C-alpha cells in the first residue's frame, strides 16, 4: 500500500482526530533464502496521537528502516502498520531541498502537487516560514541558508503537507550542538502548537531524552524493541540538565550492554 493511499484515510475532514499509530509485529528482511538479512524482527509499538516517541539504537538496529516502512517508502515483510488516520510526512538527515526552487517554492511543492492555487500556496508558505522563524527568506535559494535554516525549511515543507504524523530520521544529526539545541526548542514548540505526533529516530541518547515522551531502545541485527523508557521530566527540558543526563546515563549503559553483546 502506498503512502498516499493510507494518507487519504485521515484526510476526509479537517476536524477528525486521528487514532493511535499501531505497529503489530512488523518485520523487514532484505534479500531471500539463506542470505536474507533480517533488519527488523516483530516490532510492535503503539504511539498515541500527539505523542513524541524517540527510537534509539546503535547502528544496524533498523531504526531508519522502521521509519521507511511507516512512511510507506518500503514494503514490510511481515506484520501490520495502522496509521490510525494520520497523514504522514518525513524528514531526513539531509534537508534535501530542491536547489532549482526558491525556499518558498520548496515549501509550496506539496501544495502544488495537490493543485492548490498559486496565491494560496504563497500565503501558506509565508505562514509556515514564519512558524519556523524564517520570515523574509522565501525568495532565497537553499544554498544561501545555513544548515540549521535549511533543516527548518525542510520542516516547513513537511508541515505544508498538512501531516499530523511527522517521521524524523536523525534530522539534526549533521548540525552543530548549538544549532541542534535551538532546533530542539523549536521542534518542541511546533509539536505543541500543531498537536503533532512525532516518531523521531536518533542515535544520540541525550537528544532522545531531551525530546521524547518515551524513548524506545532497539537492539541491533535484527532490530527488536528491548526496552522502553518513559521520560517523566517536565518540559521544556534542557539537554544539559542533571535529570536528562541521569536518564541518558541509564539508557547509555543499556545500549552499551547491547552493543557488546555483538562482540561474541
Amino acid at each position: 500500500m502506498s503512502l498516499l493511499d493510507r494518507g487519504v484515510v485521515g484526510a476526509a475532514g479537517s476536524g477528525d482526530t486521528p487514532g493511535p499509530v499501531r505497529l503489530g509485529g512488523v518485520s523487514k528482511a532484505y534479500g531471500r533464502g539463506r542470505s536474507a538479512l533480517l533488519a527488523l524482527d516483530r516490532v510492535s509499538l503503539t504511539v498515541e496521537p500527539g505523542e513524541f516517541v524517540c527510537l534509539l539504537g546503535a547502528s544496524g538496529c533498523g531504526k531508519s528502516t522502521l521509519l521507511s516502512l511507516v512512511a510507506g517508502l518500503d514494503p514490510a515483510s511481515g506484520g501490520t502498520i495502522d496509521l490510525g488516520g494520520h497523514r504522514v510526512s518525513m524528514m531526513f538527515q539531509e534537508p534535501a531541498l530542491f536547489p532549482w526552487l526558491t525556499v518558498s517554492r520548496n515549501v509550496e511543492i506539496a501544495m502544488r502537487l495537490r493543485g492548490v492555487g498559486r496565491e494560496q500556496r504563497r500565503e501558506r508558505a509565508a505562514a509556515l516560514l514564519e512558524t519556523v522563524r524564517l520570515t523574509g527568506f522565501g525568495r532565497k535559494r537553499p544554498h544561501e541558508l545555513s544548515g540549521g535554516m535549511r533543516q527548518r525549511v525542510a520542516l516547513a515543507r513537511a508541515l505544508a503537507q498538512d501531516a499530523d504524523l511527522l517521521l524524523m530520521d536523525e534530522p539534526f544529526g549533521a548540525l552543530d550542538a548549538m544549532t541542534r539545541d535551538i532546533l530542539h526548542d523549536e521542534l518542541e514548540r511546533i509539536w505543541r502548537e500543531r498537536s503533532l505526533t512525532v516518531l523521531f529516530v536518533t542515535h544520540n541518547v541525550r537528544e532522545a531524552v531531551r525530546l521524547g515522551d518515551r524513548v524506545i531502545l532497539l537492539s541491533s541485527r535484527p532490530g527488536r524493541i528491548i526496552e522502553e523508557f518513559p521520560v517523566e521530566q517536565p518540559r521544556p527540558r534542557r539537554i544539559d540538565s542533571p535529570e536528562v543526563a541521569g536518564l541518558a546515563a541509564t539508557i547509555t549503559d543499556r545500549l552499551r550492554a547491547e552493543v557488546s553483546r555483538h562482540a561474541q
Partner: protein
Amino acid sequence: MPSETPTTGPALADPDTARRQPGGSTADEVTGLDALELASTRADSRVADVGRAVWSTTWPKLLAIALVIAAWQVLYLSEWKPPFALPAPMTVFDDIRELVVSPDFPRAIAITAQRALTGFLLAVVIGTLIGAAVARFRPLRAAIGSLITGLQTMPSIIWFPFAILLFQISETAILFVVVIGAAPSIANGLIGGIDYVPPTWLRVGKVLGMRGLSLYRFLILPASLPSFISGLKQGWAFAWRSLMAGELLVIVAGQGSIGSLMQGAREFNNAPRLLSWIIIVLVLGILVDILFNAADNALRRRWGLQQS
C-alpha cells in the same frame, strides 16, 4: 503552570507561553544564530573583485594569442614553406578585414549558422526523446544504452559517404550527419542526469506524494538539468564539427556556406583566405562556448554548486 506535569498532550501551552519558558529558545536566539551563520558566507561572496577577476582570466589568453602569432611569424620568416602556402600573420589579418566586409561573408555565416541551428535543434528534440525513453524503460536501456555511447564516440564524418548515397548531395545529407553526430551526446547527458538524481531527493519526492509523471515533472527532470546542459554543450560541439566536415564534402550548388567558400579558396591556392576562415570558425566556436558556459554558470550560481 506547565511545570506540574510532563506535557505529553499537545498544545497545552499557547505559543507565547512556550516562548518565554526557561529552556525554550526565543525568536531572537534563533534569528541571531541565523545571522551569525550567514555572515561568514556573505563575506566570502564579496571577495570577488569583478575587474580583477576579469583581468586575471584575460591576460593569460592574450599572452597565449601573442605567443602563437609570434611563433607563426618566426615560422614564416624561416621560409619553411613558400609564402603562397604559409602566408605571414599580417597578410592573413589584412585578408580577414577584407573578408568580413565582403557580401559573401554574412551570407556564408547565415547559411552555415542556419544549418547548424536546424541540425542542433533537431538533435535536441531527438536526443531528448531517446534519452528520456532509455532512462525510463529498462529493456530499452539494455537494448540501446551502449549503442548510444558507441555512436557518440564515432567520428560522424564516416557517415557522409552513406548519407550522400541516401540523400544525394543535399541539405538533407548534411542535416542527417549533424543530427547523428549530436543526438547521442544529448541523449547521454539526459540519461546521466536522470541516473544520478540523489536517492534522498527521490525519497523526499515520494514522501511529498510524487508519482509517475509528477515525479518526472517536479523532480527528475529539473534535477537532471546540469547534466542535460553539459550534454547540450557536447552535442553542440559534435554538431559543429560534423557540419564543418559536411560543408567541405557536400557542396550544395548555390549555397555559399563557410565550407564551400573554403573549398573555393583551396582551388585558387588562396592560403590567406583559408587561414582567415579557420580563424573565424575558431572564434565562432569560442563565442558559442561562452554562451553555453554562461548558461552553465548561471545554473550553478542558482543551485549553489561549485563555480567552474
